[in-house]
């Protein structure tokens, strides 16, 4: 071994932050090389994390599965609520305002009024039910068809069914008030009790999904945090060596963050698959049931944008969970 071949120490003997020695490189090349090395460092961390997950396929899969099931609960509930909403038509329809017109109002006047109402900014649509149609409907639905035919005059007024944009109680009440003041309107009726019930059910559903989401997000953070903690314990020696040879906290943290994100990615994809499979499995029963009621209703699958949001959210959660776990344990990882 030749002494002249050994790596040289710093000529000045003074510690400096940068030990790179490429005297023939210009500054631009140095920046470019640094950037490339930085990217390479990230790539190496990502590949190392991926390799570690793949080298324990069962453990990694079951961790992702637990996370995936946890994620699919609130998302699945939210999708089911969406389907129920679709089944009942729009919620706004349940909050229709019925305008009973003056008996003397002609059908043409009724049409004019309907058009006027439909142009209002807080109205989705307005539908005119003429006096004749109302009578016909009553005859068909009441079972008193023959008796009603004996009446000398049609006693029913024309009705305009107004579908509002909002189902907020105060706004609906204000709209009902404005509509009742229109010329030709005898009475404006709104089933506010039903609207309130409906609104309360919706709020309860939303709140339940929100609470469940929070709870399960916390569970996910704990699951990922605990998993990363075990990885940290297994690599304690390596971390101590890295810190002794000048690795920063960021350098130590990086592979664990990628690991957390990869767990999240796996969980997101599994969750998406579970939801798609679950909804498809339920759908055959729902289609059968709906068919018995003469409906062609079927459950919608997982929309692509919802699936993507779920996956991205899972990756972020994995990353955050890993960050929290490493931040908590980094202090204990000082070289001994």
């Amino acid at each position: 071994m030749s002494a002249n071949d050994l790596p040289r120490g710093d000529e000045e003997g003074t510690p400096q932050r940068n030990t790179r020695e490429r005297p023939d490189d210009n500054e631009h090349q140095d920046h470019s090389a640094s950037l490339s090395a930085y990217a390479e460092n990230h790539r190496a961390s990502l590949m190392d994390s991926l390799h570690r997950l793949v080298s324990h396929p069962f453990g990694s899969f079951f961790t992702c599965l637990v996370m995936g099931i946890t994620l699919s609960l609130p998302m699945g509930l939210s999708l089911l609520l969406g389907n129920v909403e679709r089944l009942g038509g729009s919620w706004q329809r349940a909050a229709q305002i019925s305008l009973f017109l003056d008996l003397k109002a002609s059908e043409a006047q009724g049409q004019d009024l309907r058009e006027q109402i439909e142009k209002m900014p807080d109205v989705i649509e307005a539908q005119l039910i003429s006096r004749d149609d109302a009578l016909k409907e009553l005859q068909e639905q009441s079972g008193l068809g023959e008796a009603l035919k004996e009446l000398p005059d049609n006693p029913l007024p024309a009705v305009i069914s107004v579908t509002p944009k909002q189902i907020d109680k105060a706004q609906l009440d204000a709209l009902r008030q404005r509509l009742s003041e229109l010329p030709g309107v005898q009475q404006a009726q709104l089933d506010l009790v039903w609207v309130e019930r409906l609104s309360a059910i919706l709020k309860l559903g939303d709140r339940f999904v929100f609470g469940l989401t929070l709870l399960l997000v916390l569970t996910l953070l704990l699951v990922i945090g605990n998993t990363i903690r075990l990885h940290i314990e297994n690599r304690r020696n390596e971390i101590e060596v890295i810190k002794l040879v000048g690795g920063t906290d960021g350098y130590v943290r990086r592979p664990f963050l990628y690991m957390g994100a990869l767990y999240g990615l796996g969980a997101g994809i599994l969750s998406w698959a579970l939801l798609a499979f679950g909804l498809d499995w339920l759908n055959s029963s729902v289609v059968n049931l709906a068919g018995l009621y003469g409906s062609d209703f079927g459950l919608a699958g997982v929309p692509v944008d919802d699936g993507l949001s779920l996956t991205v959210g899972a990756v972020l959660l994995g990353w955050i969970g890993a960050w929290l776990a490493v931040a908590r344990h980094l202090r204990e990882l000082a070289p001994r």
Partner: protein
Amino acid sequence: MIRFEQVGKRYSNGHVGLHEISFRVPRGEIMFVTGHSGAGKSTLLRLILAMERPTSGKLLLGGQDVSRISTAQIPFLRRQIGVVFQNHQLLDDRSVFENVALPMQILGLPKADIAYRVEAALDRVNLKEKAEDRPSDLSTGQQQRVGIARAVVHRPALLLADEPTGNLDPRLASEIMSVFEDINRLGTTVLIASHDLALIARMRHRMITLQRGRIIADREENA
């Protein structure tokens, strides 16, 4: 290069690791620190590496006050120091090449530079052909040489060695010491903590002797 000015280290349990010691190690020198177990050799090295903080005095490394360095600056300080451990501290799940490359990966050097320098460092310790082996496949002496290659691959200004020959037979121990001398001849300051007085006696270098945290002898050259 290294300056201890009345540096003391007292632990929270009352034990005194070092009693206000002072000494200087000029740039490019090779120096031994010796003494029995518990004399304070490891404490001294740990203070230089900022693994511990002195409770009194001032520790200067190349003009930088290590005793007051911020936590964020510690990794950058350690990048200027190469460390050789008695138990090698090699990572068994990585190859010899990857172990030696570690300090330069941390520095963020380009892949080509890393490959060039690692090969050169392994060649210098006669282990180039073992680059793809796992450390556990090597003998104790070879493992220690890998440890030395890792310690010098990034061309540190200072090389610290904590009982580097503790697990080696006399022949291997002499060989390892020769490697340190070669590194020192190229300008790297070398500080070796060892209790192997017989080995140190055969080498003509400065030696300070610690006893219960105090310097009891500082010989410029032990003959």
